[in-house]
């Protein structure tokens, strides 16, 4: 399981082989007249673990999305939490919230249509665009599991659908007893996880174990969706545990964290957090393959920073709506929330990063800032005007190659793709027209072509 902060222990001798899966469905929509249209990326997070963290004062509510492909019939999740968790502090929730958050916060391409340069003529090109709401499918069949007596004094032990949750009391959860407890009930603790668990135990972290019995889960399809677990706790420690997530992993893990705060944008204090480059004009063809384009942008920038940074992909205040806010855990325990704007002062931040134990040796320490400036990764493509049969039209057409060249360069600098190939795709010659012996230039890669002063003052 590629889930952060969770340790997947196989009931058996071997760790399960796992992979991520997410289903998305696309519904094309054709608007009737040309106006700016947004194409939201979908399916870019299939390989990523997802978590929601709500911070409200000293309370944290964490929701973990779990997607698994495994051959084993049962395995367990071990979740480290800073304080003792009571039964009323853990629940299983529907998984739609992740799809909704993803749709709201995904990077997007905005289509714009150039107005006709010729006076009096309207542009009669039909707009075509696709909006892509993703719909997560799947769900677990509900059934009751028998409470097993593990011989350990647990504070609470109950079943919800596919989960058998055991919450260990303060005494049993701390110290070497956890290791004994896990080993006694044949959880095969991977060797690499042992020092991490020991470290958490010494830091006074507590644990709860959620055992998943796959026999209670619909296995008719290849991919299995387990419902997210939501847990809340009070602690001054605002952190995101990632160390356990690297234990099972063959390579770098990818994580998307949706974080909510009444103050503003959330960032890490022990790692660099920067905004993903956004706002560029890109070649038209990108809109038909935006998912792969954005994946390339993400990959390229991750490599550029050698996996040492977190990327902010979205900041938005009051954008979720009361239903979605409640699904993140806000208002948990309140009987009825009449005011639909009750949580509109919460800012949603989306952080997306790739990590392994070398680039991210410590857990993330987070802080709330009061920055509420909206941000969303978006790029623009421009449809050229079709009615250009006038003198102004000729001058408009003459400027188009230069614009295409800039768009190609912007795409090359964002993705690291070869500039010549991009220029070819937009109908430009692979190299710029030779002038009077131009000097040798390096291919555009790495930082965008901005001078030092531009970078300071823009």
């Amino acid at each position: 399981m590629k889930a952060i902060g969770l340790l997947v222990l196989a009931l058996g001798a071997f760790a399960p082989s796992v992979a991520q899966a997410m289903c998305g469905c696309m519904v094309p929509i054709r608007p009737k007249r040309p106006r700016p249209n947004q194409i939201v990326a979908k399916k870019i997070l299939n390989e990523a673990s997802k978590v929601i963290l709500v911070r409200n004062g000293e309370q944290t509510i964490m929701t973990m999305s779990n997607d698994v492909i495994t051959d084993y019939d049962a395995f367990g999740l071990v979740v480290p939490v800073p304080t003792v968790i009571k039964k009323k502090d853990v629940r299983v929730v529907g998984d739609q919230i992740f799809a909704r958050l993803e749709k709201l916060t995904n990077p997007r391409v905005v289509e714009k249509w150039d107005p006709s340069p010729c006076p009096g003529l309207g542009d009669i090109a039909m707009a075509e665009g696709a909006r892509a709401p993703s719909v997560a499918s799947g769900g677990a069949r509900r059934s009751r599991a028998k409470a097993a007596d593990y011989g350990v004094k647990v504070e609470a032990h109950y079943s919800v659908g596919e989960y058998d949750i055991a919450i260990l009391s303060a005494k049993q959860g701390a110290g070497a007893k956890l290791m004994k407890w896990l080993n006694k009930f044949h959880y095969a603790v991977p060797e690499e996880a042992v020092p991490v668990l020991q470290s958490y135990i010494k830091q006074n972290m507590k644990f709860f174990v959620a055992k998943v019995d796959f026999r209670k889960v619909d296995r008719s399809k290849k991919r299995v969706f387990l419902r997210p677990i939501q847990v809340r706790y009070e602690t001054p420690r605002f952190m995101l545990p990632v160390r356990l997530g690297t234990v099972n992993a063959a390579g770098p893990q990818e994580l998307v964290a949706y974080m909510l705060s009444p103050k503003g944008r959330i960032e890490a204090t022990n790692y660099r957090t920067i905004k993903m480059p956004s706002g560029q004009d890109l070649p038209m063809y990108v809109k038909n393959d935006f998912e792969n384009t954005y994946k390339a942008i993400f990959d390229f920038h991750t490599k550029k920073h050698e996996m040492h940074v977190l990327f902010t992909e979205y900041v938005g205040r009051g954008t979720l709506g009361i239903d979605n806010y409640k699904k993140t855990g806000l208002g948990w325990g309140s009987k009825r929330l009449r005011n639909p704007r009750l949580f509109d002062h919460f800012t949603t931040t989306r952080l997306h990063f790739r990590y392994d134990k070398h680039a991210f040796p410590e857990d993330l320490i987070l802080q709330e800032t009061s920055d509420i400036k909206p941000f969303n990764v978006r790029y623009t493509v421009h449809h050229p005007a079709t009615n250009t049969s006038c003198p102004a039209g000729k001058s408009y057409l003459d400027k188009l190659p230069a614009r295409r060249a800039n768009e190609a360069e912007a795409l090359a600098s964002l993705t690291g793709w070869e500039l010549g190939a991009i220029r070819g795709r937009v109908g430009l010659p692979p190299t710029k027209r030779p002038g009077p012996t131009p000097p040798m230039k390096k291919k555009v890669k790495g930082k965008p072509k901005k001078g030092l002063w531009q970078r300071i003052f823009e």
Partner: protein
Amino acid sequence: MLTVHTVVRDPRHLQILSLAALLVYGFAWLEWEPDHVHATAILGTALVAQLVASRIVDVRFDPRSALISALSLCILLRTTSPWVAGLVAAVTVLSKFLIRSNGRHVFNPSNLGLVAALVLFDDAWVSGGQWGSTAFGAFLFVCVGMLIVYRAERSDVTIAFLGAYAALLLARALYLGDPLTIFVHQLESGALLLFAFLMISDPRTTPDSRAGRILFASAVAAGAYFVAFVLYEPNGLLYSLVVAAPLVRLLDHLLPGRRFEWRLAGTA
């Protein structure tokens, strides 16, 4: 008289240059978000406050210390409001004139300004992670920093602080059984190195004697560790230094030494 010789010899000039270079590095390479309005508010208010206060107490207007404080605030203070930025700059500079004991100011001005901002205003924060942590960056920091503190004859505070803090981090890593990559990562923090070389090393707000400075630095390191790993608050370095500042007077009383004056290095 201001000659090339005097410019080069005064460690404050080197500090101003270094802070300006760090600011440029941050905006140009580390992709900090530039905010010219804030920078103007901070620099303008700091210099005006220095001018007005100097006139009131009838001393010569010397912009250097105000510049150092203002540049530090530009690097460290984050807020959405230029009013907060200006107010913090004013508090920073005026604290030198208003909070004094035994003939000198008690608090490192930018340190006090930042803590006041964090405590008094909701709309103020410090981004500890804004430097990232790469070995090369850390190395550069150390080299430049050593030069500055050597010039200001305060390298003992820096070394004692880093040594004590590193020892505490190492002890924690060993106790928890954590890999040493965590310890190294915690030391590679630009915020830590900036604090060690350019904040705690302020010769006017540290004890006069070497023994006093080493004790002071160790106390600040212990306080910072406590805030970070017991209280789990960010910015432990800043809070610890502010709380420890009044101790300087006590340490000078118990362990007297020669008071530091801003004179050119190498002159009498």
